[in-house]
C-alpha cells in the first residue's frame, strides 16, 4: 500500500512538472512522425529569437490533423506543421488556424501559396518510379501504362489507406477527368485489365513488390516520390553515382505541406517567429536531405544529389483542396468498386 501511494505521488509530481502548459520561452510544434530537423538548426532558431522549440509527434499527417481538429481552440501546441493540400480544406473548415502572413512569403512560388491561414513550407511530387534496369524504353506518360507491353508491371497503394496512393488517384482524375472519352474510371479499368497490383501502404509496394533500387519484388513500376531516386543514391549500401531508379515525370501530383499558427495559442509571437524561421534559408536548405521533399523557398539551394538524380516535373497536378475535400470519399469508393471488386 505504501508503495502504491508512493507511486501515485510520483505520477502526480511528474505530471505537474510535465503536463499542462509549456514553460514561457518555449514554442511547441505539433507534427507527424516523418518530421525531421537538425538539432543545430533548432539551436540556431533559439540563438536568433530566444525561443526554444519543443516537438510533439502524433502519428501520420492525417492523424495529426485530426488530433488538432479535436483540440481546436484549445490546442496542445502553438504551431502545426504537416497538413498538406489534400487535407487543407478540412483544416480550414475546422477553423484550426489564425491568419498569419510571414514577411518571407514572397520567396515562395505563388502556386504553393493557397490560403492566408497557412504557410507553405515544402512540396513533394508523387510520381511513378521506374526500375531502370527493366526497360530499354521506359514509359513516358501515364496513358501508356494500360498498354499490354506494361502488363503486370505496376504496383500502386490503396488510396483509402495510403497518402501517395490517394495522390496518385487524384493525379489520374486530374489527367483523365470525370467525363469525356476516356475518364479516370476507364483508365483504371485499363490498369486492372493490365493486372495492376495494390498494397495497403507505401512500404509494401516499394520494398516488397517493386523491383528497382532497394525493392525486393518483381514489378518495375511503383507509385512513389520524385525524391526517391536521390534517396536511393544517398542511402545506397555502396557509394554510387547513378540512381537505379528514375521518375516518370508525367501525371505527378504535387503535395504541399503547410505550417500554421493554431488558434488558441498563448504564444502567438513565438509561433510566428517559428514559421518565419521555417521559411528561412537554413531551415529550408536542411529540408531535402532530412525529409526528402523540396523546399518551398525558391532561394534555397538544392543539394547536389537532388539536382543530379531527380526531375521536378514541369507541369505537376495541382488540385483545389476544396474539390478534393468534397469528392475524396466518393472517389475512393468508386476506385474501390473498380479496382478491388
Amino acid at each position: 500500500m505504501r508503495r502504491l501511494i508512493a507511486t501515485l505521488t510520483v505520477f502526480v509530481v511528474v505530471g505537474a512538472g510535465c503536463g499542462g502548459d509549456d514553460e514561457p520561452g518555449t514554442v511547441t510544434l505539433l507534427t507527424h512522425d516523418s518530421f525531421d530537423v537538425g538539432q543545430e538548426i533548432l539551436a540556431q532558431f533559439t540563438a536568433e529569437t530566444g525561443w526554444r522549440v519543443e516537438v510533439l509527434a502524433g502519428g501520420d499527417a492525417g492523424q495529426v490533423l485530426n488530433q488538432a481538429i479535436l483540440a481546436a481552440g484549445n490546442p496542445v501546441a502553438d504551431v502545426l506543421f504537416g497538413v498538406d493540400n489534400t487535407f487543407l480544406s478540412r483544416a480550414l473548415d475546422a477553423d484550426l488556424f489564425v491568419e498569419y502572413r510571414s514577411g518571407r512569403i514572397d520567396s515562395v512560388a505563388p502556386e504553393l501559396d493557397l490560403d492566408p491561414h497557412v504557410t507553405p513550407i515544402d512540396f513533394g511530387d508523387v510520381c511513378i518510379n521506374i526500375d531502370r534496369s527493366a526497360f530499354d524504353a521506359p514509359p513516358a506518360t501515364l496513358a501508356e501504362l494500360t498498354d499490354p507491353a506494361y502488363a503486370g508491371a505496376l504496383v500502386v497503394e490503396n488510396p483509402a489507406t495510403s497518402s501517395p496512393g490517394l495522390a496518385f488517384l487524384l493525379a489520374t482524375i486530374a489527367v483523365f477527368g470525370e467525363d469525356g472519352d476516356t475518364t479516370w474510371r476507364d483508365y483504371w479499368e485499363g490498369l486492372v485489365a493490365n493486372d495492376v497490383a495494390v498494397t495497403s501502404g507505401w512500404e509494401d509496394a516499394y520494398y516488397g513488390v517493386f523491383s528497382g533500387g532497394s525493392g525486393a519484388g518483381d514489378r518495375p513500376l511503383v507509385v512513389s516520390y520524385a525524391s526517391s531516386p536521390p534517396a536511393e543514391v544517398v542511402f545506397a549500401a555502396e557509394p554510387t553515382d547513378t540512381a537505379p531508379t528514375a521518375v516518370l515525370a508525367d501525371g505527378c501530383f504535387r503535395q504541399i505541406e503547410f505550417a500554421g499558427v493554431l488558434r488558441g495559442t498563448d504564444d502567438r509571437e513565438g509561433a510566428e517567429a517559428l514559421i518565419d524561421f521555417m521559411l528561412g534559408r537554413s531551415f529550408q536548405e536542411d529540408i531535402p536531405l532530412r525529409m526528402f521533399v523540396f523546399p518551398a523557398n525558391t532561394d534555397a539551394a538544392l543539394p547536389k544529389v537532388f539536382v543530379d538524380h531527380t526531375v521536378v516535373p514541369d507541369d505537376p497536378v495541382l488540385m483545389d483542396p476544396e474539390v478534393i475535400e468534397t469528392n475524396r470519399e466518393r472517389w475512393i469508393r468508386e476506385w474501390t468498386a473498380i479496382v478491388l471488386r
Partner: protein
Amino acid sequence: MDQGVDGNRPALSRTARLALVGLPLAFLVIFFAWPFVSIVATGLWRDGRFGFSALGQALDEGDLLGVVWFTTWQAVASTVATLLVALPGAYVFARYEFPGKRLLRAAATIPFVLPTVVVGTAFLALFGPGGILGIRLDGSIWAILVAHVFFNYAVVLRTVGGMWSHLDPRLEEAARSLGAGRWRAFRYVTLPLLRPALAAAASIVFLFTFTSFGIVLILGGSRLATLEVEIYRQTALLFDLPVAAVLAVVQLIGVTAILLAYSRYQERRAVEQPLRAAEDIAHRPATAGQRALVGGVLMSMVLLLGTPLAVLIERSLRSSSGYGLAMYRALGDDDGIRAIEPLEAVGNSLGFAAVATLIALVIGLSASVVISYRRSRASRWFDALLMLPLGTSAVTIGFGFIVALDAPVDLRAWPLLIPIAHSLVAIPFVVRSVVPVMRSIRSRLREAAAVLGAPPGRVWREIDLPIVSRAAAVGAGFAAAVSLGEFGATAFVARPDTPTLPLAIFRYLGRPGELNFGRAMALSVVLMVITAIVISLIERFRTPGIGSF
C-alpha cells in the same frame, strides 16, 4: 466442483479493500472510460442532441453487418487455431526439462512485440508474390490465420503452460492406474483443471484478433476488413466521427458480451486444486517416446515461429555487396542526415516498458485480488471492464485522450500518457495470468495458517505471495512485451519527441534506399534480442522454489 470461493476471502481492512477496488477503478475511469465516452459523445452529439442517424448511414454504405461477421469469425477461427497449435507446446514446456528451455520460452514471445509492418514484410517474403515458399497466401484468410497464430502462440504457451506446470501429475497418473487411457485421463482429469487457464488465454487471443489491424491491412490485400480497420478508416482518414462512434459502440457491445460470458464461465469453473512447484513436476524426457514427443513439438514450434524471424534476420544481414554486418554497423553511422538515434530509441523503449510494467502490475494485482476473492455480479463487471481496453480500437482511445484529458489538468501531451496507454493493454495480461492461479489456492492452507495464529497480512505474504508472484512474473513479461511492441493508443496521441524502437523501425522503413531498409531490419533484430533478454530477466525474478503446498 462448483463450490464457492467466498470462503477463500482473506480478511482485509476496510481501507485496504477500498484501495484495492478504488485504484484500478479510478485508473480505468480516467484513462479508458472517460476518454471513450468523450470521443463517442463527440461523434454522436449533433446540433444540441444525440443523433443516431449515423447508425443508418453505417449500416447503409459500409456493409457493417458483413464487417462484423468477418471480424467475429476470423477471430474465432484464429483463437481455435492458436489453441490447437500452441497446446502441445504448453504441455511440453510444463512437463519436461530440456536444455535452452528458458531461452526458448523467452524467444517464443518475440513475435508478440514485432511491429506488424515488419512481420508483414517477412510473411510477404514467404508467401507473397515471388515468395520463398512458392505458394501465394497473401490476400487470403489463410495468411491472416497463420499470422495470428504466429503472434499469439506465446499467449497460450505462457498462460496455459504456466498453469499446467503447477498441476499435480499424480492426479492424471491415478486415473491412468485405474485403467483410463492417455486420452481419457487428459480429457476427464487434466483438461477440466486447465479450463480456467485455457479460457483466459482464449479470451485474450480472441480480443487481440477481434481488434486485429495491421495484419489484416497488410496481408488481407485491401479486400478484407475488420471493425478495427473500418474504425481506423472512418476516424483517422475520413474523419467521419459519427460513423466511427457507431462502430466503436458496436465493437464495445460485442467485446463486452464475450467478456461477460467468459467471466461467468470462469467463475463456475474455478476449482480449488493442489498446485505444486513447477520444479517438482518437470523432468527430462526419459523414454524414446518422450524424447520424440519433446523433439517433435519443439521442432514444429521452431519452424512456425522461427521461419518468419529467420527471414528478418537474413534480410538484416543482406546487402548488395553480400552478407555481413554492414547494416548493424550502419546503425552506428552518423551520416549527418539520420533521423534516429538507435541507442536513444533503445533507452526510451526500455524506460517506457519499465514504467508500463510497473503500472500494470500495481493496477493488475490489486484488481486480481478483488476479482479472485469476491464473487458477485459487480466483480464480474469489474473483470470485464479491465479487459475492455484490449478489445477497444487504439484510435478510439487515442483520440479520446485528446478530447477528454484537457481539464482540469491538461494531460494531453503528458509523457507518462505513453506508458499509461501501454499499461491499459498490459493490465489484462497481468489479471489473466494471476486470477486463475489465485482462485486455485486452497483455502485450507489459509485457514490452517490463520488457525495457527498468523495475521491476515502474514497469511497473504507466506501463502499467496510466493504462488502469485510466479504468475505475476508471467503477466509482467507480457506487460513489458506489450510496451516494447508499442501496443495501444500511442500512435494516436501527440507525444514528445521520444522515438521508441518500433517508431525508429517505422521511420527507416518509411524512406527509400537500401540502407534504410537494412537498418529497419537490423533494428527489428535488435528489438527481438532486447525482448528475449527482458523477458528472461523478468522470469528470473520469479520466487524460486515455491516449496510443497
